[in-house]
Structure formats: C-alpha cells, structure tokens
C-alpha cells in the first residue's frame, strides 16, 4: 500500500513539474514600462543590458527600476528561461550577488501580474516582464520589432 501511494505521489509530482515547465516554456511574455524613461522599442541586447542591471539610467536620465515576477511563479520561470537563459534560482543568485557588491539597485519581485503592472505604472523608469494576457492593459515595449518575447 505504502509503495503504491509513494509511486502515485512521485508520478503526480513528476507530471506536475513537467506541466509547469512546459507551461513556462510556452508562455508568451511581453515587456511593459512606465511612460517615463523607457523607449517604445528596444533591441534584444538593449533589453538584456537593462534586465541584467548593466544600465542604471535611461537615455533621458530617469533611473531604471526592474520589476520581475517571482521565480516561483510560472511567469517568473518563463522570464528566467526566455530573458535570462537561466533557471529561476540562477536569476535570484545573479541579482543577490550584484546587490551584495553594491553595483545595482535590487529588482522588485511580484507574485501577480497585476501587482507588477501597478508598480510599473506608478514608478518612473520602471520596466518589467509579464505574461501576455487580456488583463494586462499596459502598452508593450517592442523588442526587435516584436510585441512578444
């Protein structure tokens, strides 16, 4: 009986983890920003420089604030993979190391897209990545001429 339960739980966990991973891979992500600071269009290398804390200010002088979904969310996992080419854990480590070195301002992490969108709308210079959804009202920043990542 114990063996059956263990097998069932293990199988469920494997399926669940594979589903989340597949879901994360298939997510369409969009980049959104505050109306002040970020341009309407970025190329991929400019986006990477911003998202990796390599750029402190936009060209108009507004300070950049990076907003990300927590790595524990499906959108956060998708952002880690598609934007950073890392796992969620690696992205967390990357930022913690930079903040500890005193090099950059820490990004702000959110549990939901609506919280992230609200933060961005209220913070000049803010930029973030969310799942594409009808609930997201902000105008996306085009990346390499495309709306989604």
């Amino acid at each position, binding site marked *: 009986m114990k063996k059956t339960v263990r097998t069932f739980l293990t199988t469920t966990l494997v399926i669940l983890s594979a589903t989340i991973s597949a879901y994360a891979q298939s997510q369409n992500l969009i980049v959104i920003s505050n109306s002040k600071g970020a341009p309407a269009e970025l190329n991929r290398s400019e986006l990477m*420089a911003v998202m990796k804390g*390599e*750029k*402190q*200010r936009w060209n108009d*002088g507004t*300070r950049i604030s990076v907003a990300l979904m927590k790595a524990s969310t499906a959108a956060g996992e998708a952002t880690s993979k598609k934007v950073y080419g890392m796992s969620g*854990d*690696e992205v*967390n*480590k990357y930022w*913690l*190391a930079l*903040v*500890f*070195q*005193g*090099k950059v*301002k*820490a990004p702000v992490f959110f549990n939901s897209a609506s919280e992230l969108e609200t933060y961005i709308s209220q913070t000049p210079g803010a930029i973030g990545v969310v799942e594409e959804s009808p609930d997201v009202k902000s105008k996306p920043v085009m990346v390499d001429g495309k709306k989604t990542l």
Partner: protein
Amino acid sequence: MKKKISKKACGKLSFLLALQFAWIAGICQDTQIRGFAEVLAGYASTTKKVSFGLGEQDLFITSELTDRFSFLGESVFKYSAPSPTLFDISIERIVVKYNIKGNHNILVGKHHTPINYWNDTYHHGRVFFPTIYRPDLFGDHFIPLHTTGISIEGHDLGKLKLGYDLMVGNGIGSGETADNDQAKSVTAAIHIKPVDHLRIGVSYYTDKISKGAKDAHASMIVPVDIAQQLFTGSVAYFGKRFEFLAEATAAMDHSDSTATQQSIAGYVYAGVRFKKFIPYGRFDYSEVPDQELFFHPDTKTSIVGGIRYEINYLTVIKLEYGHTEDDAGISDRVTAQIAIGF
C-alpha cells in the same frame, strides 16, 4: 536593585516594538536587510581533533535614499576569544553612493578595496564562495581588504563592458576614523567583460606604510617607512558548465634599509558543474623574501580539493580537503560547511 518586568509590561513593550517595526518598514520601502552565515565541522592535523564551529554572520543593508543617493552597510559578527562577550562586531563596509550620470558613481566610506575579483565579488558572502576558505592571498593579508576613502567607479561601459575604479583612501596602518600619516593610498583598477561570464581585470595599488604601523599579520611593528606597490591581475570565468578563477598579486616594498623586496602570491581555481554538484580544486602559492618587512617571509603552497552542492541559491554545502606546506611545516584539514543566505 533589580526590577522584574511584569507580563503585562512585557506585552505592552512587545506591542510598541512591533508597532515601531511596522512603522519603520512602512517608511523604508526601499531598504533591504540580507545576510549570510555559515556553520563548519572539520578535522585539522595541527590539532588532531574534530571540531564543530560557528563561522561569521554577515548582515548587509541596502537602501535607496533618493534618485541618486544610495547606501550599503555591512557588519560581521564573529567569535572572538579575547572579547568579553566572546563575539566581535566589525563594520566591513559603510558606503554612500552618488550616481553622477549613467553608470558612473562616486562612493565615500569604508569599501572593499577594488583590487581583485574575489575581494570585489565575494568578500564575506560565503554562500557565493566557490571554496570554503578564502585563498591564501587573503588569509595572509597580501592585499589590503578594506580602504576608507573616496572613489569613482563606472561599470558596463561600451561593447567590452568596461569597468573602472579609482580610489583614494587612508591606507595601510590607518584607523577607521583617521589616517595614521599624511600619505594616501591610491587604487586604480579596470576590468572588461568581453563575453558572458568572463571578466578580466588588472589593478595597481600604492601606499606609504609608515614606521610604527602594524605589519600584514598585525603581529609586528613596521620598523621603517615602506613604499608599497601592488600589481594585480585576474581572470574569472563562471559559466554554466566550467568555472575558472586565477588571480595573482606582485608586491614591491621599498625601504631605505632593505631596498626593493619583491613578493608574489596567487591562486588558480577550477570547477566543473554537474547539475547541482561542482567538484573543484584550487592551488595557492606565495613567496615572500627573508628581507621583507611588511609581509611575513615564507614560501607557501596549498592545494584544496572539494565538492560543492548547491541546494538552492541560498543554501550551499561544501566538503573540502586542504593541504598546506610552508616554512612552519605541513598541515592537512578536512572541512564541511553549510553556508546560507537569508
């Protein structure tokens, strides 16, 4: 006369403290407190026993003060036998940063001297260390770990992602609040990151170590003035599969009585990642001539081999063997460490 605090008063105090904490948290939205700690267990051939031990507890605070000003503070709590409480607190960093323009900043306060990769990147963040212990270059105080002063820095400039640091500080032998002489230390460093995960850097440090200052091990008094120059080079690559870090410092200490004495210290680290396991090795070498007055004259070789298991980015376990040979003899140690971030 001792007064006992009643349960009621204790409750009120707790409530007031909670209220104050909530208020502070409310007004300091851009202030973050993070930290690192470690617990160790190991066998050393010098003591011939197995011991458990507390490492350091490192707390660092970052705060965004204005659009241009920010603050970083770092304090370390560690065991210290001479202390009445058996623990010491040291202020490792107090840095106020002002963003001049783009990626260019001015920093004032007590800094990690930006002399090489390890000192700039890890310092007390033991969860980031690729090995349990710092290289001998640090343990033997071959480089000045901290400098109190002012610096200008820039990072990720241009296609090569150039970074630079120019720092003027109190220098070796000084206290935290005043310089011990009129001379100032100067550090100049540049690095580039031509491809992802790779950083190559060089630095130059110069200072006048005044007669009466303590030597590198803080065990002797320097008998004469010494003009010190340090030349450092480092290459760091931490990719998804391979890790490599090599750093070396050449020191030239000049005094009227001993002329110029040349010392060298360096290490090479390499590791290979297999998912969350990283077997690694490090080789350290240092050579200090007998006439040297600031560093401890010695020729030292160390080999370290171990395995690191990264449970997640905040929890890392390491098991490591170390073998050291120097003028004092041969020593071996086996150490296990749990390093955490919080």
